[in-house]
């Protein structure tokens, strides 16, 4: 939950507030308000707040050009419209580049349908107590009526909130409640806030535990310092269109219904959580396997392609572009395109086309066009470049990316679509052991989508250890590796700021792993953030270790894993577990596609 403190004016007072976790600072530009900043207000005062605090100007039925001029002068990020402004007016403010917060006055008879026309032209609503004088009454409205709000726009809760309300606020569970608007309840005199009282109140709210979003993406697509959308202007409109639509569509009832139905009766979810008895004995602990290998097409990739194809459909797209390395994502994309009757073009490095012949044949049988990427080193990185170039030349197409990589919103979009994995693990584990939280979650990382899905609902559960396993190829020191976090540093690839394998001159280097699905020189920005912040532990496994781990699983549990998943299995050998530990390992895919490699090694 975000915090807005409104009705600020005095620089001395603001200096007492800047160290508090305030997300929005409100300045009132309505002359009749007792907290009006005044004619001579100094533009340096809002700037006392750090950049991370957004500056909001509050206006009531102001002339548009006056408002815009003030917005510019005071470098406001957001405009709060607190009068009877029309939807057209809001739109004009939004078009001028401001975030728009439209305030509405609540009473028990408030008709939430009247907000419909504002949905497309506002970023947020603000619900305040109905008064004669445009707010500032110091009274609360009946919060129960919020249940009637079913819209898609997140809202600020305002009106008379005071120090005594912390407990009641913690009980609020509306999924669109975005922020608290604090004003008169924390004042020494109008426009002068009581910093001590605010601090106590904010501590009581336990924002850190309430904010489930410590590892969530911010509005601009960053996880900590990683992410963003580093794309040429040529892609801007496409990416903006996706950014504007994805959350709305994912949250819609229709999408949720279609997605759940397809996961259930087409993909074959929920996938089992198998207690691996023999493996548990071998390592002296309790090992559970999350069986993504049992999905349709044989890997977790389909969770994502089902979601994105629905998104493409709702956005009216007819032509689908994808990249693939091992061919798993290509097959999963070709599959959903066949299901939805959409044109499908898959870029695949020319070298991988040769290495992964069975998957190429599957894609073709499913009706996809497979285009070999002949640029660069002709593997996944180059296939991704080609897919993006296709998207530049065909902006009406939908780019269906295969992992938690690429420009914002892709990392967040794919993470959300894969989060079904940990959602199920929680339920299944709770049933099995009485506790939804394991001690460890282990997953392999190429771009990082299966790991992101397996970690997602545990990101803020400090007691759950997250273990990500990269492919170290012939060894991290060998130069023939794909262990990005271990040997990489900060850079930019495929539109994202992340950890990257590159040379001293900033040229991206070619990774190596026996497993084509882990053979990527970058990693999703969420994982870069988890690694740098220490939230997840990053280990690696060599080709050899992975091959041996695959053999162990086959012989002890009767399951042949994908080579990618075998890298996750390989670290079981290196880790120390307690007898009572519960270890969940995400078995991201099955080994059919890798039989040739296994046969070469074991026969």
């Amino acid at each position, binding site marked *: 939950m975000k915090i807005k403190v409104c009705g600020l004016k005095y620089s001395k007072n603001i200096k007492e507030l800047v160290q508090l976790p305030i997300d929005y600072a409100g300045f009132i530009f309505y002359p009749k308000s007792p907290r009006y900043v005044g004619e001579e207000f100094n533009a340096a005062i809002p700037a006392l707040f750090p950049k991370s605090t957004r500056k909001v100007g509050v206006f009531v039925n102001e002339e548009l050009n006056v408002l815009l001029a003030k917005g510019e002068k005071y470098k406001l990020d957001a405009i709060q419209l607190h009068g009877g402004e029309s939807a057209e007016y809001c739109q004009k403010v939004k078009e001028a580049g401001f975030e728009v917060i439209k305030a509405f006055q609540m009473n028990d008879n408030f008709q939430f349908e009247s907000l419909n026309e504002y949905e497309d032209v506002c970023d947020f609503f603000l619900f305040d107590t109905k008064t004669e004088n445009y707010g500032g009454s110091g009274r609360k409205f009946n919060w129960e009526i919020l249940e009637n709000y079913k819209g898609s726009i997140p809202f600020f809760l305002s009106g008379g909130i005071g120090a005594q309300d912390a407990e009641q606020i913690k009980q609020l569970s509306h999924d669109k409640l975005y922020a608290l608007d604090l004003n008169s309840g924390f004042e020494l005199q109008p426009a002068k806030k009581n910093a001590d009282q605010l601090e106590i109140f904010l501590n009581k709210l336990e924002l850190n535990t309430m904010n489930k979003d410590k590892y969530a993406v911010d509005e*601009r697509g960053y996880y900590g310092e990683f992410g963003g959308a*580093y794309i*040429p*202007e*040529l892609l*801007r409109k496409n990416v903006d269109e996706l950014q504007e639509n994805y959350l709305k569509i994912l949250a819609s009832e229709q999408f949720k219904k279609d997605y759940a139905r397809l996961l259930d009766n087409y993909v074959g979810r929920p996938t089992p959580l198998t207690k691996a008895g023999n493996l548990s004995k071998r390592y002296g602990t309790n090992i559970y396997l999350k069986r993504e290998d049992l999905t349709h097409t044989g890997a977790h990739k389909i969770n994502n392609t089902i979601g994105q194809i629905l998104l493409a459909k709702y956005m009216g797209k007819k032509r689908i572009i994808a990249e693939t390395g091992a061919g798993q994502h290509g097959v999963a994309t070709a599959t959903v395109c066949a299901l939805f009757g959409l044109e499908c073009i898959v870029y695949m490095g020319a070298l991988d086309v040769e290495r992964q012949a069975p998957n190429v044949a599957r894609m073709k049988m499913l009706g996809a066009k497979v285009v070999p990427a002949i640029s660069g080193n002709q593997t996944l990185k180059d296939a991704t470049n080609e897919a993006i170039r296709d998207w530049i*030349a065909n902006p009406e197409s939908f780019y269906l990316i295969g992992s938690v990589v690429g420009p914002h919103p892709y990392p967040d979009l794919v993470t959300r679509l894969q989060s079904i994995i940990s959602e199920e693990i929680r339920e299944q584990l709770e049933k099995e052991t009485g506790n939804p939280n394991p001690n460890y979650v282990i997953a392999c990382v190429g771009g990082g989508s299966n790991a992101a899905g397996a970690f997602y609902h545990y990101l803020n559960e400090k007691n759950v250890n997250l273990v990500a396993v990269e492919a170290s190829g012939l060894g991290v020191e060998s130069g023939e590796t794909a262990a990005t976090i271990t040997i990489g540093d900060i850079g930019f*690839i495929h539109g994202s700021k992340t950890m990257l394998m*590159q040379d001293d001159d900033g040229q*991206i280097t070619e990774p190596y792993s026996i497993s084509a699905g882990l053979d990527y020189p970058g990693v999703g920005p969420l994982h870069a953030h988890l690694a740098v912040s220490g939230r997840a532990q990053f280990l690696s496994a060599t080709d050899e270790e992975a091959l041996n781990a695959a053999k162990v699983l086959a012989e002890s549990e009767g399951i042949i894993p994908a080579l990618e998943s075998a890298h996750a299995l390989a670290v079981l050998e290196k880790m120390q577990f307690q007898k009572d530990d519960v270890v969940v390992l995400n078995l991201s895919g099955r080994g059919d596609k890798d039989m040739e490699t296994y046969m070469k090694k074991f026969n």
Partner: protein
Amino acid sequence: MNRIDQLFQNKQKDILSIYFPSGYPKLEDTLPTLQLLQDKGIDLVEIGIPFSDPLADGPVIQTAAKQALDNGMTLQLLFDQLKDARKSITMPLILMGYWNTVYKFGVDAFLAECQKVGIDGVILPDLPLEEYQEEYKAKFETAGVHNVLLVTPQTTDKRLVTIEKAASGFLYMVSTASTTGGALQASKEREDYFKKIAALDIPSLIGFGIHDKASFQHAASFSNGAIIGTAFIKALEKGNTVEFLESLQ
């Protein structure tokens, strides 16, 4: 005064700009190519910084960049090659490349080198405007280096307002939705787009798909001039640059 600003002050029509990758076809070709371009009366030059993953470029520039990298080209080497360029080169010079190479080099070090060798502007297509404005704009301005921004047929009117406000030097008007080296088809829609951009307060050059005298003249009739890249690289490859440049006159 920045040489780009000077150019647009002195000349408003038919500005001819050429793009070529540094270190191509041979490692030491950067400076001789610059000299040739100046001798042939080219107004403005964009020098490519080679990158392993040039997302916005078509096959010809990709291949040339790869060749340059194979030759051993680096950003530091480019600055070294340009060390004495200003003894003879008076044209405005722009460096064009991808953000990763500049970031890795270090933005401060990069700008210091630009100032030292006399670079007037940069084109960094994958550095987002917002990040540029928040973190780097002040540094570029202090160094006197223009960050030339791109507009495309897909750029919305709303974003155009933002870009116009932030632009410096000139606007690089991408002619068509494609990577570099595509063909340019004339259409009413396209001409309306050209006219809309040309009507802005900042000068503009049209690029992508301009490949000979006719397409240059057509583009230049809507703007202050145009940029030729891929077609010149093909001439470098074939070794008929003199002939090609003369055919544009």
